[in-house]
């Protein structure tokens, strides 16, 4: 029997709380199940094709308690998500315009996997340097919970992570 880590316990509780609601009403924007004020180290999947932006977000999180797994396109992201299993990540930061598989398709695929496997809904934050006004709506329609506009400042990122239970400090 493996020892229970606090963050796994928190994730399991969160999964139990928001999993059912997300399955019943997938079109409804889920509420974040972490108790108000609770902070814990987040496991973050960063999906971003541009090295400049990967390095930047890595630098933003250098002194944070969060752990970062990086994927360079949507296809690799879906694989990483699948491999990590239920509650493998607390939040996904998803670039939308990428080669191979873009963020829209990757988000739809992640939502499909969650639904098929009865997994809790992992928050997905779209990262987009908007080229077209409809991109925000498209990101939400694809299954993202919110979007941040690139270029992303450190404070903006940390505030977003805090909304998902991450320590903003």
């Amino acid at each position, binding site marked *: 029997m493996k020892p229970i880590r606090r963050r796994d316990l928190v994730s399991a509780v969160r999964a139990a709380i928001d999993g059912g609601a997300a399955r019943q009403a997938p079109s409804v924007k889920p509420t974040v199940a972490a108790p108000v004020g609770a902070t814990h180290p987040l496991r973050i999947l960063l999906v971003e094709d*541009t090295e400049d932006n990967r390095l930047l977000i890595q630098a933003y999180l250098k002194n944070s308690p969060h752990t970062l797994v990086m994927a360079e396109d949507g296809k690799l992201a879906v694989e990483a998500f699948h491999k990590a299993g239920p509650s493998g990540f607390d939040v996904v930061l998803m670039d939308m315009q990428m080669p191979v598989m873009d963020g829209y398709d990757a988000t739809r695929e992640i939502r499909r996997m969650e639904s098929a496997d009865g997994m809790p809904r992992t928050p997905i934050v779209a990262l987009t340097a908007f080229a077209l006004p409809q991109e925000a709506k498209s990101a939400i329609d694809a299954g993202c919970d919110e979007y941040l506009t690139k270029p992303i400042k450190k404070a903006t990122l940390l505030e977003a992570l805090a909304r998902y239970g991450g320590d903003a400090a």
Partner: protein
Amino acid sequence: VSEPRYDTPFVVRPEPDLADLVPTYLQRRHTDAETISAALEQGDLEVVRIVGHSMKGSGGGYGFDGLTDIGQELENAGRESDAEGATAALRHLRDYLANVEVVYE
């Protein structure tokens, strides 16, 4: 709308914790300028759009808001197949890189 001008020296102050990354970041923008120049010679405005979009999405994160603006110019020119606009935006990029002075505080 006034044309962005970077043809005289100016100072940018990125976050000190990005100091390790900034030289490489700026070096890559020199490479972008060469890529855009070659694309324009071949009339490939799609490359201009893609490079511009990427620059727009990263510049301000590193503290270079002007590069985000120039990236937007490049992206727009690329999308509209506006070779003249792309050439002007490339000039802005080269001016920017020639005149930016990075200071950490």
